[in-house]
Every structure is written in C-alpha cells, then in structure tokens.
C-alpha cells in the first residue's frame, strides 16, 4: 500500500476552487440589474425550456450560471424550502436573505467536504421590495460565500469584465428598456473586447416587477414584448460621466 501524498489544506482548497471556476466559465454569463420598477434578469440561453432564471417565491427570483443539473437541484431545493417555510409560518416570512443563507451553507458544506466534488455553480438570489431601497440582490459563488450586491451584478465565466462594464453605466431608476439594453450590450462583449450580436430569440429575460398587482411578482418576458422593449431604446446606453467608448477590459 502506497503512502498518500501530503496536500496542504490551502492547496486542496485552491484546487477545488479552480475546478469549480473552470466549470462555471464553460457556460455563458448572465446579469441581474435593478431598474425603476424592480429587478431584471438577462442572459443568453438558446433553450426555451431549460431556464437559467426562475421564480422561487412571491418576491424572490433565482438566477444561476454553471452546471445545469447542479443548479436545477439547488433551485428545486430552494422552492421546497420557501414553500415549506411559507406553509409553516407565513408568506411574509420567506425572505431572500434566509434563502441566500441556506444556499450559502449548502454550497459551503459541499465545497469543503472532501467526500463531495464542489458544485460548479454561481447563483444570484434577488428579492424585489416595495421601493428600490427594499430590493435585495445576493451573489453566491461556488464556495458558499455571500456577496450583498447593489445595482447590477454579473455571474459566470466572463463576470468580472461584464460587471466592470455595468458598474460604469448602470444608474438607479433606469427604465426596463434601458436596463435591458444595457444588459444585452454588456453580455455581447467578448473577452477580447470585440462585440457580437445576440438575437432576441437567444435571450432569456425575466423580471421581478413590483408594480404587478398579483402577489407573485416574477414574470418572463418573451416574444413580441421582448422585441418591442429591445427596439425601444436606440443606440448605446452610455455612462453618466464621460468615457463613452467604455473600455471594459480594465
């Protein structure tokens, strides 16, 4: 019997993190943005049936990049968690913060357990409030940490570059059409800085719209409404102060 090699904990964690990051980077990135009436989810997704964005509960939405079977599993776990919690207590007692904590614990335990391979996923849990101040967006990387985000967030392989681009241009109180346009522009930029066209039928778009009269605020935007929104803002959404050519590579 051979003696196992010693691997330092630092090295083991670094290897696992690299494994997870590489897995996530294979998929397309997606973005989540606040706009005047809520939160919009935008991503490139050629599939009509296998969603990246879904409803978890009344005001809570879910977005995921990475390996489909793993985030689908987490999504269903989240729906079960939220529905059970709402059934046990009250619908108001289901919060994005609670859900994000459970996801963080779950991802964190899997990441540091030697018996399991780390999940190759990065999640966003968002809750729309009664006003923009009440909106909550949490980003959950593969290792189980939680990042409380404001304004805009990108996850996936190309996330850093895209968030840089968004940070410069996103402002509070954008209309849905403006936010959507900005999101598409951010997603169309490749790693090398060149742009490509993403046709409307390859886009998956959903919103948490606080103005919806129903209790459930999540809604997918598809078909004619999506094309109309995309066409309604001509040109590029430019940053508020200078730097119009938007060097997103930094």
């Amino acid at each position: 019997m051979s003696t196992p090699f010693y691997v330092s904990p630092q090295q083991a964690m670094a290897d696992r993190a690299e494994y997870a990051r590489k897995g996530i980077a294979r998929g397309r990135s997606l973005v989540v943005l606040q706009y005047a009436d809520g939160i919009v989810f935008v991503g490139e997704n050629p599939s009509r049936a296998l969603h990246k964005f879904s409803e978890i509960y009344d005001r809570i939405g879910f977005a995921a990049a990475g390996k489909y079977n793993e985030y689908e599993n987490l999504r269903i776990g989240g729906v079960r968690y939220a529905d059970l919690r709402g059934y046990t207590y009250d619908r108001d007692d289901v919060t994005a913060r609670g859900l994000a904590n459970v996801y963080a614990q779950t991802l964190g335990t899997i990441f540091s357990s030697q018996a399991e391979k780390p999940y190759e996923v990065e999640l966003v849990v968002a809750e729309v409030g009664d006003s923009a101040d009440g909106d909550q967006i949490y980003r959950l990387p593969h290792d189980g940490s939680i990042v409380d985000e404001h304004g805009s967030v990108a996850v996936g392989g190309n996330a850093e570059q895209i968030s840089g681009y968004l940070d410069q241009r996103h402002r509070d109180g954008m209309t849905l059409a403006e936010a959507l346009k900005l999101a598409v522009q951010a997603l169309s930029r490749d790693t090398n800085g060149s742009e490509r066209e993403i046709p409307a039928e390859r886009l998956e778009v959903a919103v948490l719209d606080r103005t919806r009269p129903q209790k459930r605020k999540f809604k997918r935007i598809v078909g004619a409404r999506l094309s109309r929104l995309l066409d309604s803002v001509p040109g590029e959404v430019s940053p508020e102060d200078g730097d119009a050519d938007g060097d997103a590579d930094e």
Partner: protein
Amino acid sequence: MEANTRSTGRLPAAFLTPGSSSFMDFLGEHQPEMLPGNRQLPPVQGVIEAPHGTTIVAVTFPGGVVLAGDRRATMGNMIAQRDIEKVFPADEYSAVGIAGTAGLAVEMVKLFQLELEHFEKVEGAQLSLEGKANRLSTMIRSNLGMAMQGLAVVPLFAGYDVDRGRGRIFSYDVTGGRSEEQNFATTGSGSIFARGAMKKLYREDLTEEQATTLVVQALYDAADDDSATGGPDVARRIYPIITVITEDGFRRLSEDEGSELARAVLERRLEHPDGPRAALL
C-alpha cells in the same frame, strides 16, 4: 418544525433529492406530521362542534365561469361568523369554493393553492385543469377519516380550461368522488334551493354580467329558505363573494361591484319576493 436546517444550516438531503413535483408528496416524505390528512383524531362521541360554511354556487357562460359564495358560518343554531370568506383563487385560472367545516376547509385551500403553485414553479408549466381537479380529489380523500366524524369538507372547483377555451365546473362528495358538472352546480346546505333557482334562470347564452347576477339570485334564494346561508347584509355592508374566471384569468369582483349587484337584486325582491319568473312553457 423548522422549515430548513437541522444542525448544519445546510438544506437537508430530502430537499435536494430529485423526486415528485408535488409539494404534498415532498411534505409526506419529509415532514408527514404536517399533512392535515395524517392528523390523529381522538375517539369522540357524537358530532364535533365547529363552524360550518354553507352555500357555494357556480355557473358557466360563454367565455368563462363564475364562482360565488355567501358569507355566513354557523355552529349549530348560532351564527359563528358573518363575513367569512369561502371562495378563493386556486391559481391564475381556477378558484375553489368550500362548504363544510370552515377551519379544515381553509387549511385545505391553503395546501391546494401551494400544491398548484409548487408544481408550476418546479415544472415551469401549469397543471391541466383536469390535473388540478384530480389533485383536489386526493386531498378530500385524505380527509375521509375526519369527514366520518362530522368534519367534512365539500368544495366546488371552477376554472377556465385554457386548452379547450371554456369554463368548467367540478363538484365533489366527502369521499373525494369527483364529477364534472354541466352549466351550473351548487354545494352546501343551501344548495338545493340555489340549485332550483339556477335551474330556472340558466340559459346557455348568458353574458358575464348576467351570470354574476344569476349567482346572486341563487344565493338569495338559498338564504331565503336555508337558515345556515346568509343573505346580503346591507346594514353591515357584507355581500357575497363573486369571482369570475376567463381567458384573462381570475378576477374577484370588488366590494362596490358586489354591492351594486346585490342591491339591484334586493331592490327587485321588494317588488317580487320570490324573484324573477320563468315562463311556464
């Protein structure tokens, strides 16, 4: 009774195990004690006294279906509540009205709503109207033990069938037996009187407005002859709950709309206490 976490804060294995899209199945496996049907009832003598809800009526019209209920809950010969709500949206395209033991009925509706919503979220698609009706059947069946002790729940389920493009009504018995009703249906203690009224007033070409008036007429007649059914209470401004489900989804008539309909019917009854007359032949 915690919804999540046992010790670690991590989602328990049951949450991440692939399985059925049904919330009730999940609950049955994970926390069976929370399912109403699994509740153990101590042996009791005679009938358990609990508030009862009474009359629910439904009628289809071209383009949709109307479901309505009176507002009275009774316990024996006492009025337990004057403004109880017995008609609820089940989801975007269906509604359920409940007669029977009020406490259990409300709990059943809550679980039924959750069951439909859970399926929709997990699968990304709605159940068929038939599927929803069957699900309700299962729930009533699981209540049979309590129904045998006098705690029965007898719902009326109505919805817009998006595949067939029309409104449909399903009625149930205490054993969960389900039957689709043509044109109109009633349930609860005042149902025989409401049914008589609907039978005489129903026509196949009703407009939405006529259909909502028809249910108020039927509820009025039920309240007229059944002491457990409450009529429109003008003094307290308590009117029947009327819901309409069409291609555009579920809509509950506002208090103003409800009061207007009820007052119009009341007004006519001052002249003709027995209501509108159908032709003899």
